[in-house]
């Protein structure tokens, strides 16, 4: 971990969709215990949370959420979106967020991966979105920029988002997992790389970290499937949010990295049962991807809030009439910016 980053600059936000977090917290204890944790209980979860002792944490449940944002607004934090409440109330610069069915992974040498340290390294070393480095992250030990990489681009840009990966249960959609029920991701790819500018990708919410000061408002709950459920296969909220983040980062000259760290994702759920629910999401992506690829933000959008508001506008204009889900998402994005301004950390600093 970078020596210059203090533990108190970091919040670890966990959305609890399961009540018994004992094994989850115990497994992560060696890595998490130094840090402040924010645990947000899915407002729909009825059972009491079981959390082991010995952590420095704040737990938010439905009454707390209602108190902060009002009962009518608190519905936006149902299910996997509960983590966004944690992002909203955090006052730290760096936020690391993993799903509650993920555990520390081991690397190729059998050593436990300190996902927090790797995410922080990713966020505190520059990203290089304007030209692809064939040796991947040039700032990692033992690597550098290759021949032909322009020197003017070697200082890179600030990294706003770090997207980690998953061993075992990969981030597949329901049809893919249903077709290949036995397939598990066992390939540990020892790399971090910057996602090139203007290249979009499906960012999953399972294992991410971000610089809240710089990009906070763009991680938002807005696209909610009609049949959204309590398995990742039954949501699209993170994919949508990720598209907003990438578009904002590209516009503001910020970087997004992908690759390490890995977490170990436990088997959970039945892909075939989720098929029917996810079909809606699969269909929507056919619209969502070309849409985001075409979005161009105006020069006047100089902060993340501006970017989110602009994207919301364009969503409403171009996608609103195609499916009411988009109209609702656009409204949710606008509401989110207002909520962020009133409840969240002070306004994000203008992009680089």
């Amino acid at each position, binding site marked *: 971990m970078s020596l210059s980053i203090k533990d108190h600059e970091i919040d670890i936000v966990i959305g609890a969709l399961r009540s018994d977090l004992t094994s989850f917290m115990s497994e992560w204890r060696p890595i998490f215990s130094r840090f402040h944790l924010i645990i947000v209980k899915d407002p729909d979860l009825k059972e009491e949370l079981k959390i082991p002792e010995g952590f420095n944490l704040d737990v938010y449940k439905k009454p707390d959420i209602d108190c902060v944002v009002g009962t009518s607004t608190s519905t936006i934090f149902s299910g996997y979106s509960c983590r966004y409440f944690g992002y909203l109330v955090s006052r730290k610069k760096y936020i690391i967020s993993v799903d509650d069915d993920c555990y520390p992974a081991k690397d190729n040498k059998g050593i436990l991966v300190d996902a927090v340290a790797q995410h922080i390294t990713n966020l505190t070393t520059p990203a290089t979105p304007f*030209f692809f480095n*064939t040796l991947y992250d040039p700032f990692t030990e033992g690597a550098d920029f290759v*021949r*032909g990489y322009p020197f003017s681009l070697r200082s890179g840009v600030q990294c706003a988002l770090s997207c980690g*990966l998953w061993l075992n249960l990969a981030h597949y*959609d329901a049809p893919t997992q249903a077709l290949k029920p036995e397939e598990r991701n066992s*390939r540990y790819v*020892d*790399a971090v790389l910057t996602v090139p500018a203007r290249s979009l990708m*499906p960012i999953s919410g399972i294992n991410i970290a971000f610089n809240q000061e710089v990009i906070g408002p763009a991680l938002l709950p807005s696209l909610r499937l009609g049949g959204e459920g309590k398995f990742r296969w039954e949501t699209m909220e993170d994919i949508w949010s990720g598209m907003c983040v990438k578009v904002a980062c590209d516009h503001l000259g910020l970087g997004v990295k992908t690759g390490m760290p890995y977490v170990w994702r436990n088997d959970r759920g039945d892909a075939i049962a989720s098929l029917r629910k996810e079909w809606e999401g699969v269909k929507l992506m056919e619209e969502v991807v070309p849409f985001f690829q075409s979005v161009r933000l105006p020069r006047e959008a100089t902060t993340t809030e501006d970017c989110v508001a602009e994207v919301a506008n364009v969503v409403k204009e171009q996608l609103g009439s195609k499916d009411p889900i988009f109209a609702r998402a656009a409204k949710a994005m606008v509401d989110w910016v207002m909520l962020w301004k009133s409840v969240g950390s002070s306004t994000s600093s203008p992009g680089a």
Partner: protein
Amino acid sequence: MAEPATATQAAAPAVALLKDELDIVIPTIRNLDFLEMWRPFFQPYHLIIVQDGDPSKTIKVPEGFDYELYNRNDINRILGPKASCISFKDSACRCFGYMVSKKKYIFTIDDDCFVAKDPSGKAINALEQHIKNLLSPSTPFFFNTLYDPFREGADFVRGYPFSLREGVPTAASHGLWLNIPDYDAPTQLVKPLERNTRYVDAVLTIPKGTLFPMCGMNLAFNRELIGPAMYFGLMGDGQPIGRYDDMWAGWCTKVICDHLGLGVKTGLPYIFHSKASNPFVNLRKEYKGIYWQEEIIPFFQQAVLPKDCTTVPKCYIELAKQVKEKLSKVDPYFDKLADAMVTWIEAWDELNPIGPVPNGKAA
């Protein structure tokens, strides 16, 4: 510390994929001893050896390889005045091998590249991996976070549109290097001892609209799809620049691939790069390039090819035109280079007079 595999470790594959459809092009000025180590993997294939430097020197090819060899005299004889587009005293001359080949696929490798080992200690059949990369689709329109979805044990992740899952044809496969990394001279001078020991077990498609610095040390491509774009420029003797041959070809290739909807992959396979070239010599060769690339990169990033450029040669001629228009002011070298690019296409057409070749659709 990375080590190359020994000759006995490399076991020949049961089936030599694309045996009669692929040529291995090797530029050389010294000798071809390195082929001994590659024998189990290369022997089934036809080699095209392009001998650079003094044509009166005899390059010994190890027994048992099927090959054709061209030296400067041959190049002059075959191309006549058009031979001016082929570099002399630089490994850029290898592109002559692409031109004379009659095969669908090309694999090119430097003579100081040996068989590498994967983390389990197994010898890597680089050629086989390149072929796998070329025969499976690329996915340039949307980034897959689990890298190449067509590799065993991987797939497209949640959120990847199904309409994009067929991918596009792969035009080029760019491999990497363990041991001596492909650094420029300044980096070599600052970090003379740095060795690449990181084996990154991934192949990925370079997204559309993104440029990269292509290295010719370990490269394969579909000659029918992209061959004419793989011109390695004017380098070496009588030229103000060196060590920019492969990168120039890479930038042209990527712009054209993006325009025609073709894919470029990078990552596996690794080879073991054994010889570090002299950084002071390199610095002198690269010096101008280090300044020029600040203009060259934006040029390629902004290059737009018109819709009616639907074949690679048409795209390439158009690029040559734009090089002349926009880069000549950087240095008269680019004027010469633009002319050489046109000469290259003329020579290519002469040596490859067959009818229209399959190509992608213009973007």
